[in-house]
């Protein structure tokens, strides 16, 4: 009995299926150890190690592209193209984050070596979410990600805003976890399993269960949990505060990677496990998508703090991405994948500019603080402009291609009005994005404007982001094709 058990366990192990996450975890732990033995305040080499880890994970991901699916661990993970695509998104997000972080942390006075491993663990958690095919894996991946993010958000422990961000995120995140778990429990009760494929199959054979209040309630409570992570209304309210209070690179990271991870997991659950409830969740998400993008865009208009404004903009982008889920067709889903990648580039790029533009304490990241910025710092100005245009969704940028992709899905699925509302929302969003540019270029700088030095890491991340934004904007074909192949 013992041997067979061991054999069974060994048979189930398939490292290939978790390779990218594995690499990140190993490198993360190594970096932690090295950090312990490094001189306090020296973090650069740690960041390099972590970058290396990310690149390695990237190689592992890309190397497996279009290879057969890797299942493993008793159906707990599946490294398919869907996961690989999202993994690339996470890796890119993390790389850009780490690049912009080092000088930022030093400037703000928190050269914490554990920071980088935590980012790696977060990324690993995100990867597990994206490739998890069991509620349990997804939940644990989510928790790894969340717990790391609680820590990262509250990283600046002597800064009240950072504390507050971390604490708020923690309290609300834990609260939402309660709903998520309750939802999972109910689904488990109805189907007797937590494996997504099994759940889906079970519903196929027992279609009567699809109208059971417990099933629906389970689906909805589960959605609440994910919608919270995505930042969809009315579960979005943590986002602006946390984004504003968290360290800027973390804000950037949070709004890209974890959000994409939540989308990935949400998509998998909805499509694999709850595909039978399509009518229910599309109608729900229809409303929530509209609410999310409207609230995000409308409130962003009256913001003066750029970080907070981008936080609201991030909410509205989540709303656009939800449109893809509502469409619930191939184009919409590939669209979300593409959009998340595009959003990673443009949003991280914008935040990278902010990390450079800010001064210690970051009290100057307001619209007024940006007056005349474009001419004083031409490079950052142009970069910010490109990112903002991309966020607006104007061609030829990634944002446009992404929006086009998603709205194409919605239109094809017949959600014409949703697409119309979406584009009208984009019109509203023009106003506040343009206002940043108004301040950057059309206003004279304040008296006390000081030139801020460009830091290599952040500049590299900005350049990478610009390349990404323009490449995805002008020649999106390849990546769009990849997103298409990424359907599971």
């Amino acid at each position, binding site marked *: 009995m013992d041997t067979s058990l061991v054999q069974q366990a060994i048979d189930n192990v398939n490292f290939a299926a978790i390779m990218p996450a594995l690499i990140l975890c190993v490198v993360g732990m190594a970096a932690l150890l090295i950090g312990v033995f490094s001189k306090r305040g020296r973090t650069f080499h740690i960041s390099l190690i972590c970058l290396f880890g990310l690149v390695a994970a990237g190689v592992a991901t890309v190397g497996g592209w279009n290879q057969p699916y890797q299942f493993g661990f008793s159906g707990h993970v599946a490294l398919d193209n869907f996961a690989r695509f999202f993994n690339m998104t996470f890796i890119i997000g993390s790389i850009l984050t780490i690049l912009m972080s080092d000088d930022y942390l030093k400037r703000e006075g928190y050269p914490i070596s554990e920071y980088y491993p935590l980012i790696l663990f977060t990324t690993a958690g995100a990867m597990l979410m994206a490739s998890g095919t069991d*509620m*349990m894996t997804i*939940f*644990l991946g989510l*928790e790894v990600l969340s*717990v790391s993010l*609680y*820590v990262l958000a*509250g990283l600046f*422990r*002597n*800064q*009240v*805003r950072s*504390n*507050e*961000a*971390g*604490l*708020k995120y*923690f*309290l609300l995140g*834990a*609260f939402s*976890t*309660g709903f998520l*778990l*309750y939802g*999972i*429990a*109910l689904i*488990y*009760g109805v189907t*007797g*399993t*937590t494996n997504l494929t099994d759940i889906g199959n079970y519903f196929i054979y027992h279609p009567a269960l699809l109208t059971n209040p417990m099933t629906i309630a389970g689906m909805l409570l589960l959605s609440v949990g994910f919608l919270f992570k995505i930042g969809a209304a009315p579960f979005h309210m943590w986002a*602006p*505060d*946390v984004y*504003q*209070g968290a360290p800027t690179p973390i804000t950037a990271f949070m709004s890209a990677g974890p959000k994409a991870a939540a989308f990935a997991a949400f998509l998998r659950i909805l499509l694999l496990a709850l595909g039978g409830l399509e009518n229910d969740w599309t109608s729900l998400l229809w409303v929530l998508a509209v609410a999310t993008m409207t609230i995000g865009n409308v409130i962003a208009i009256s913001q003066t703090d750029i970080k907070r404004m981008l936080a609201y903009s991030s909410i509205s982008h989540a709303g656009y991405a939800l449109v893809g889920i509502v469409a619930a067709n191939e184009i919409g889903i590939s669209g979300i994948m593409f959009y998340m990648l595009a959003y990673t580039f443009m949003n991280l790029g914008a935040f990278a500019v902010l990390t450079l533009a800010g001064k210690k304490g970051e009290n100057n990241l307001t619209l007024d603080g940006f007056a005349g910025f474009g001419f004083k710092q031409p490079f950052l100005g142009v970069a910010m402009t490109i990112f903002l245009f991309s966020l607006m969704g104007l061609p030829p940028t990634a944002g446009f291609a992404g929006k086009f992709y998603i709205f194409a899905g919605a239109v094809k699925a017949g959600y014409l009005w949703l697409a119309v509302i979406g584009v009208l929302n984009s019109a509203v969003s023009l106003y506040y994005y343009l206002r940043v540019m108004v301040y950057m270029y059309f206003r004279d700088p304040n008296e006390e404007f000081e030139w801020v030095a460009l830091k290599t890491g952040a500049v590299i991340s900005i350049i990478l982001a610009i390349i990404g934004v323009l490449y995805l904007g002008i020649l999106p074909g390849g990546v769009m094709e990849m997103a298409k192949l990424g359907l599971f």
Partner: protein
Amino acid sequence: MITVYHYMAVSAILFSLGTFGVLTRKNAIVIFMCIELMLNSVNLTFIALSRHLGSMDGQVFVFFIMTVAAAEAAVGLALMISFYRNRESIDVDDINLLKW
């Protein structure tokens, strides 16, 4: 006969109590405890269901939930401590610097 519904009813009551507590209490630690209460109610559901369905998955899930709760408790309490150091309070009404 004690059915699974009995357990689930208790669980539902505890869940609602937890929600109520989260909404009404001011002390962040108590809020956290209320969240723990909610998680525990979920645990109860899981185990009851697991027993009812005769599968181990639910219990394993509870196992992981407990781990997660522990991890969250560690991080959450650390966050509260560092917040307390700065604000001399863990009243959630004092967590109001970031708004609008």
